[in-house]
């Protein structure tokens, strides 16, 4: 009987890993060969990618289709602004608290919204975000309806010099984005990821096999909330001004993120990256035409949902069995790997 190994990588993924190193090096050194505008754009791409990965983790893997993640963007941002502006905390410390704070708040929220399923869960999470936004606008110490601004003193804590500050913020955003990506990847490669995939494919079946579906979903919800909060803090640290409308904006933080994930390929790790690129390209291409690019995103998302529900990357996987970030396990017999069929990470949402 031949020996059997479990293989984690694919040839494509190994090639990709090799190519990714110089690309990443280029991005990290950008402050020294690029301009402030370039850094802002890449930072934006980085935080959108992070938000997209997080939403994908939630909806594409745990089956929790939330239209309310903007709640945690806003919570993280408000935590940062309040701690630095009102409590005079050091900005780095405040940033480190912003994420866990959002994660903490997500715990009672989950008790409420986890009672809902499907579309009700979606709109329920949205209502929760609206509650946060309205509450923020009513609390005087948070600046009420007009919000808060970061004072120059706070910014100087990052760095007294403008250029260094831009560089630090850029690198932090890049680092957080890579961190979120890594967390998502490692999570999905682990036992928990396998459990999540099982839950996504069939919750009743996986429950019957002993997977604690509630706990898995709960953990994912908290973790993504915390990460989203951290990203929210970083975003508004760079925007300098925070209002309830901006911090909790469903259009800015959720609508485009959902479109990115769906167009790129929901339930795949590569998908959010591709979707983010599509978004940025469309936005830059049609920058002179107002919000037409959003209408295009919407139209493309509709077309994808109707014709190719697994998105661009899902189509690639089906066509070419390509995986750059393999999360599955393949059986390898004896000398070389035998493909036992692609891990096609396409979510089949519960029929509700």
């Amino acid at each position: 009987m031949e020996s059997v190994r479990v293989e984690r990588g694919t040839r494509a993924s190994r090639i990709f890993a090799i190519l990714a190193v110089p690309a990443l090096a280029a991005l990290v050194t950008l402050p020294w060969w690029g301009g402030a505008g370039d850094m802002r754009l890449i930072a934006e791409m980085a935080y959108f990618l992070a938000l997209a990965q997080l939403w994908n983790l939630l909806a594409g893997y745990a089956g929790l289709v939330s239209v309310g993640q903007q709640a945690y963007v806003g919570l993280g941002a408000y935590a940062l602004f309040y701690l630095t502006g009102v409590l005079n905390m050091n900005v780095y410390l405040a940033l480190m608290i912003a994420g866990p704070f959002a994660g903490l708040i997500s715990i009672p929220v989950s008790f409420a919204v986890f009672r809902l399923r499907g579309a009700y869960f979606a709109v329920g999470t949205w209502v929760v975000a609206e509650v946060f936004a309205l509450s923020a606008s009513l609390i005087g110490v948070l600046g009420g309806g007009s919000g808060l601004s970061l004072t120059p003193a706070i910014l100087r804590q990052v760095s007294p010099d403008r250029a260094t500050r831009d560089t630090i913020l850029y690198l932090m955003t890049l680092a957080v984005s890579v961190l979120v990506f890594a967390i998502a990847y490692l999570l999905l490669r682990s036992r928990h990821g396998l459990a999540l995939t099982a839950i996504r494919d069939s919750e009743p079946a996986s429950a019957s096999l002993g997977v604690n579906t509630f706990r898995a979903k709960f953990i994912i919800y908290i973790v993504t909330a915390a990460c989203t909060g951290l990203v929210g803090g970083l975003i508004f640290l760079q925007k300098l001004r925070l209002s309830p409308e901006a911090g909790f904006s469903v259009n800015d933080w959720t609508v485009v993120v959902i479109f990115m994930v769906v167009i790129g390929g929901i339930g795949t790790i590569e998908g959010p990256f591709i979707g983010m690129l599509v978004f940025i390209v469309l936005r830059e291409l049609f920058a002179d035409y107002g919000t037409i690019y959003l209408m295009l995103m919407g139209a493309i998302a509709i077309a994808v949902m109707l014709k190719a529900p697994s998105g661009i990357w899902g189509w690639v996987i089906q066509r070419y069995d390509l995986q750059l970030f393999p999360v599955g396990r393949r059986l390898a017999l004896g000398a070389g790997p035998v493909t036992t069929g692609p891990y096609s990470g396409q979510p089949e949402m519960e029929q509700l």
Partner: protein
Amino acid sequence: MEWVNTIIQGILLGGIYALFAIGLSLSFGIMRLVNIAHGDLIVLSAYVALIVGQNTGLDPISSLVIVAPVMFALGYALQRGLLNSTLSGGLLPPLLVTFGISVIIQNGLLQGFGAYTHRLQEGAIETASVQLPGGISVGVYPLMVFAVAVCAIASLQILFYSTRLGRAFRAVSDDADTAELMGIDNRKLYAVALGIAMIFTAIAGILFAIRANFDPAAGPIRLILAFEAVIIGGLGSIWGTLLGGVVLGVSQAVGAALSPTWQILAGHIAFLIILIVRPNGLFPRTRD
């Protein structure tokens, strides 16, 4: 007496919320479709009425004779062309496609009309009031809107329980497969259902736009209010939709009486409480 006044205002406010909710309730009850673009379609109706008014000189309520058929046709086309294909794919496709439609409508209106607010002018009726016993003054317009809501719901009751079409709707809502086996063309029926939902949406849009300012971004909050009214009342129940609207309106009125800025928040909180305590709403009928 102040509290009585507040409750009455809240009940009347419930009228417009019930009208918002009808379209959503119909499409959910018959097709199990939660239409994320619903709020934007309410706003779109207001803009259509605006254009009709500008080009024909008709007052908003009269312009309904044009707006209603237009919205019916739009709903029919939307369901037939786009939404019917999403119904068998599970949760995500209908949610995302209607999300896409919502974004397209919002930004299309933004591109076409700009970010300015508008209001439809109906005339004296907007500010007229009547005196009720006990010294309570009630606006004629809110009273009329409430009456329209009650008539709308009553007409739906008649439609569903006394007509052939209504019978088909109820059958399809119960068991779409078997309905098809009885000779009902489900795809066409769904399209008619959304068309009818759009008629009520048009009514809601025009009545709302006479009373409040609207702009291209006014859709999402209308969706949330409609959704809250439907959920509070309980899915699948026609009169529940009216009740849900009233509960929402009263919650908001009570909140507003405490402080005007608390109005919407009070409604959200009431909704969340009911959602946690009675997830199926107060009078649920539809099997999920």
